[in-house]
């Protein structure tokens, strides 16, 4: 059995900032990630991020990932475990971790869960054919491993992820035949949409996929136009010549560990699915278990980083660590989070956040 003060599950932007801020207050930290690298989703985000200067807007996710991981690796009171999967949480507060085919048990005083999200999928005939991928998988293939998933792609979903992954496919020299979106409006920022459209990709709103074609792999897709009531309009079916169908229909929090730990959960569509209730310190209904990032509600990396800082500070502070600037730092993070969630594009998140507060 290993003992530590703070264990952090997930080394994405939320986990990295949580580790850093807990360690800077003085806590002894173990950061665990199942990948062989740190950075989570950021490792494949080659595009510039939106946001404000404070939250590193205009920088590329890949660069933020590299910088945060380097910092974390250089802080002596953080022990990093990669290729290590947290399999379970036991009621006596023990985490069960698998690393190099060995089982390790860790007993932390505090836990920050920052496991991120998982991709949602879509029901249609033949959606199990090779060639049907999640957008995240395609992004990993192209941007992490340098592998082209195919030659002609149909992207399903015109949210930020669908549009950005389409852009990255174009950058990799892959044709994107169309982006389809069932809703009447593009969900992605319009500037992103405009940039793929001028590069030659049509965006078809009020369209959905009817089926994938092919025997052993995808060789086409049929799409159809939808009316105001989201019903297919007869006679508008169109067969597209594609060998990849890329689904980008949203993320859902990866919350198994929270369920296992018995955290009170609530279904909030605005935040992507089941999320834990939490107090203003980001502590769940199980004392000592904190959440940060997409697992607490699907948002952006900037929000994940802010939440990570907050959870890390709070977890360490609850162990008695403090600093002259602690209160100020906490206030600052909360202010920044509020700013991020302001405005009309933050409306959905604000609505979601109203439903998750504990007590």
């Amino acid at each position, binding site marked *: 059995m290993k003992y530590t003060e703070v264990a952090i599950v997930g080394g994405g932007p939320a986990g990295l900032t949580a580790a850093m801020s807990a360690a800077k207050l003085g806590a002894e930290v173990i950061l665990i990630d199942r990948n062989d690298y740190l950075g989570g989703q950021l490792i494949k985000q080659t595009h510039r991020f939106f946001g404000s200067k404070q939250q590193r807007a205009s920088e590329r996710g890949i660069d933020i990932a590299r910088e945060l991981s380097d910092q974390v690796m250089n802080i002596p009171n953080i022990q990093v475990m990669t290729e290590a999967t947290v399999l379970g949480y036991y009621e006596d507060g023990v985490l069960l971790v698998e690393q190099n085919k060995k089982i390790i048990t860790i007993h932390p005083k505090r836990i920050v869960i920052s496991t991120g999200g998982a991709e949602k999928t879509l029901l249609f005939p033949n959606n199990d054919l090779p060639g049907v991928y999640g957008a995240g998988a395609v992004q990993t293939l192209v941007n992490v491993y340098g592998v082209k998933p195919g030659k002609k792609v149909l992207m399903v979903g015109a949210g930020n992820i669908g549009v950005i992954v389409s852009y990255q496919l*174009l950058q990799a*020299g892959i044709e994107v035949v169309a982006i389809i979106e069932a809703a009447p*409006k593009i969900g992605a*920022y319009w*500037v992103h949409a405009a940039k*793929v459209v*001028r590069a030659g*990709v*049509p965006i078809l709103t009020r369209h959905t996929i009817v089926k994938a074609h092919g025997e052993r792999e995808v060789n086409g897709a049929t799409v159809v136009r939808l009316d105001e009531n989201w019903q297919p309009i007869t006679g508008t079916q169109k067969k597209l010549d594609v060998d990849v169908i890329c689904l980008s229909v949203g993320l859902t929090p990866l919350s198994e560990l929270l369920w296992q730990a018995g955290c009170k959960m609530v279904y909030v569509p605005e935040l992507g699915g089941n999320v834990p209730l939490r107090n203003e310190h980001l502590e769940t209904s199980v004392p000592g278990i904190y959440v940060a990032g997409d697992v607490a509600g699907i948002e952006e990396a900037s929000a994940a980083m802010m939440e990570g800082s907050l959870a890390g500070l709070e977890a360490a502070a609850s162990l008695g660590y403090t600093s002259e600037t602690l209160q100020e730092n906490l206030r600052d993070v909360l202010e920044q989070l509020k700013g991020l969630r*302001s405005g009309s594009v933050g409306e959905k998140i604000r609505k979601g956040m109203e439903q998750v507060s504990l007590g």
Partner: protein
Amino acid sequence: MLPQDGIVRPEDVASVLPPEERLAQGPVAIAECFQNIPCDPCYHNCKQGAIQEFKEINDRPQIIFDKCNGCGTCMSRCPGLAIFVVDATFSDSEAIVKIPYEFLPIPDVNETVTAINRAGQAVGEARVVRVQNTKVQDRTVIVWLAVPKELMLEVRHFKVRGVQ
């Protein structure tokens, strides 16, 4: 319409264009950013103070055209690649359009490329006049295209010949 198909239309652009007199004086930026989104690097990166201060991060950029010298610094910091610089004074028949570009191959100076409009359609030919690709631009290249003057408010992308 833009929210339905992602195509920026002349009516959208009309609201953000510099006046004719300003266009006639030389290079000037046009921010084709039409949605209130939490984003402000354009404002922070203009050393001329030509982008009006954002009261709130969701504000849209407002360029003070008389202060803008068309330097293009804002272009390569914009995550939306939504800012372009046009220079109507390049020659009698041609104008320069500066395009933010993140594809390969990067064209050479004097190369002829296919000029593309906001809907992704080819609208003619353009000649590459300059390629800016410094370290601060961080992999967002700025390509200066010479285009027929009447196309300067239409060309917003280009394709290198022989590349799909």
